[in-house]
């Protein structure tokens, strides 16, 4: 019986997936592409101008890092690491690592990477924390934003590079944007989580003493969520660093550029050296920010 029906072509959809026609599909894709191109032509320039301040800041910071004599930068790094971590061992390690990086002729690229990571981190924190607070405050915001964050974290970065490049071209700003899209979800998620995890009893006490919304937020929720928020900042920095190579594909200077060159030319040493420099930066950022975060929780330790 079954043979009969298939031979009769009555049930052809049963063996072959019902598809959109080839022409229809082409028009469909073309339609999307065209309308996005129109959008780009219409608003591309305005959007580019919107990000101008960010570009100026990034260029300024990069120049500052590059034009400052290296010993001063070295001292600044040592001071920052020491006051962040209060650990002499880590400070010495950081200075040694940067000496080796400089000696192996990676100083300029490292400074460029440092600049874009710093700007990306600042952008992520100043955008991510407010969004996290909003999510913690409203369940509707949470259900709306969570899937967006999921997409941002899982979609292959090359896919969102396409519209970003179409809109803003090749350059520092689209690179920065790509880094931020990838790096912002952890800080948003962990801010939200941190605030939601704040002890209900403490919140009720604050409410019972007549605290206003901002007094609750700034006096209780943010301080108590700080360990989580800080874990988010840490994760954001790590993810931003891991985007350095991809960002260099669309014109961001830094340690990613030689890595990319090494891939296309099969330069093993160049690739490994610059790759390790990224690792060193990541480890330093991680250790310093973790130690700093731990110090913020001094109150949780009981008396010795």
């Amino acid at each position: 019986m079954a043979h009969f029906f298939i031979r009769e072509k009555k049930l052809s959809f049963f063996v072959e997936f019902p598809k959109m026609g080839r022409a229809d599909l082409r028009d469909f894709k073309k339609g999307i592409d065209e309308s996005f191109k129109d959008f780009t032509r219409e608003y591309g320039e305005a959007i580019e101008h919107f990000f101008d301040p960010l570009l100026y800041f990034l260029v300024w910071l990069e120049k500052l890092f590059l034009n400052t004599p290296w010993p001063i930068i070295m001292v600044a790094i040592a001071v920052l690491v020491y006051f962040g971590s209060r650990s002499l061992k880590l400070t010495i390690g950081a200075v040694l690592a940067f000496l080796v990086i400089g000696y192996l002729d990676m100083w300029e690229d490292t400074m460029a990477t440092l600049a874009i990571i710093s700007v990306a981190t600042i952008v992520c924190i100043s955008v991510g924390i407010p969004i996290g607070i909003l999510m913690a405050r409203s369940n509707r915001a949470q259900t709306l934003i969570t899937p967006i964050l999921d997409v941002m974290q899982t979609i292959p970065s090359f896919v969102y590079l396409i519209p970003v490049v179409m809109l803003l071209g090749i350059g520092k700003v689209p690179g920065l944007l790509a880094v931020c899209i990838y790096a912002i979800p952890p800080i948003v998620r962990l801010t939200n989580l941190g605030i939601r995890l704040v002890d209900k009893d403490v919140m009720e006490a604050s409410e019972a003493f007549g605290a206003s919304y901002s007094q609750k937020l700034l006096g209780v929720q943010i301080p108590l969520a700080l360990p989580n928020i800080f874990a988010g900042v840490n994760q954001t920095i790590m993810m931003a660093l891991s985007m350095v190579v991809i960002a260099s594909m669309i014109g961001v200077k830094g340690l990613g550029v030689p890595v990319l060159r090494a891939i296309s030319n099969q330069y093993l040493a160049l690739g490994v050296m610059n790759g390790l420099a990224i690792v060193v930066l990541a480890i330093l950022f991680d250790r310093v920010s973790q130690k700093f975060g731990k110090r913020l929780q001094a109150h949780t330790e009981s008396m010795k």
Partner: protein
Amino acid sequence: MSDTKVAIKDLYKIFGSNPSSMIDKVKDGISKSDLLEKFGHVLGLDNVNIEVKKSQLQVIMGLSGSGKSTLIRHINRLIEPTSGSIVVDGEDILSMNQTELRNFRRSKASMVFQKFGLLPHRKIVENVSYGLTIQGINKKEAYERSNQWIESVGLNGFENHYPAQLSGGMQQRVGLARALATDADILLMDEAFSALDPLIRSDMQDVLLSLQEKLHKTIIFITHDLDEALKLGDNIAILRDGAVIQSGTAEDIILHPADDYVTDFIKDINKARVLKVSSVMNNENSIKGPEIQDNVIIEDALQTVSKSGSNGAIVIKDGKKIGTVSLTDMIMAIARSTKNTDSDTVYR
């Protein structure tokens, strides 16, 4: 009545998806279990009427699930009622807008919590001054005022510690000092001492009573512990399934329990420590013995009488004889009641 501080009237609280639609059914007398089974709503408070007089310590007593914590949260509107009214100092709490309510919480009624609710990231002095800084009082003044309260609860020297560095009893002293620091006339205490171990609990009860002697606050004290209720309360309301089943002084409740539930409740109580000689006093001239003040508890009176070897005592008030008590009457009064100790009855 002018000396009524807090008046709770016809208060109902129903939890569920559409509480206001259930209110008529509750007023018609549907039972708590029927409401839950047939309509999926939980009856939290069932027609509660309590008047708290100024400078009194009102205890609200009930087992877990009786609605006592829900009730106390209505007084500063941490929970909104389904219907009813709450009037404090002639002002209706329920008609207040957000700003008025905030001011009420800041200056009129402060609260002490079972789980302390201290801010773990702030030092003791910052915790005690929390209510003051919320009001916008500058740090210096707030700390000065807080230090007095830290001293009065016996925590001087710990100003710069963090809550996690203190024991439970000490943390609750901080909670008490924080509540007192705002100078609110009303103190809401939600099972404030229940999380403490027995010795420290009794210690804290004494701290509260001695502070109350000086401060004369209006205190509403929630507890599940009848001993605590009898020790602290000027007036005690017993709550069961969200309804007040008896309200009165400690003696009232022990001598005239309203129903079997209360009877069962008080059967293990040491009555000798609650009842005063005046409650078993009569006037028999045949009794001779030592003189005892009318407000002495029977436990102490029995000791005095048995030491003197007589068959009773003369009760005096303001230096004048107002009656007598016999040894037998005192012993009968404190004997465990044999009525209704039905072990099959289960109370939730």
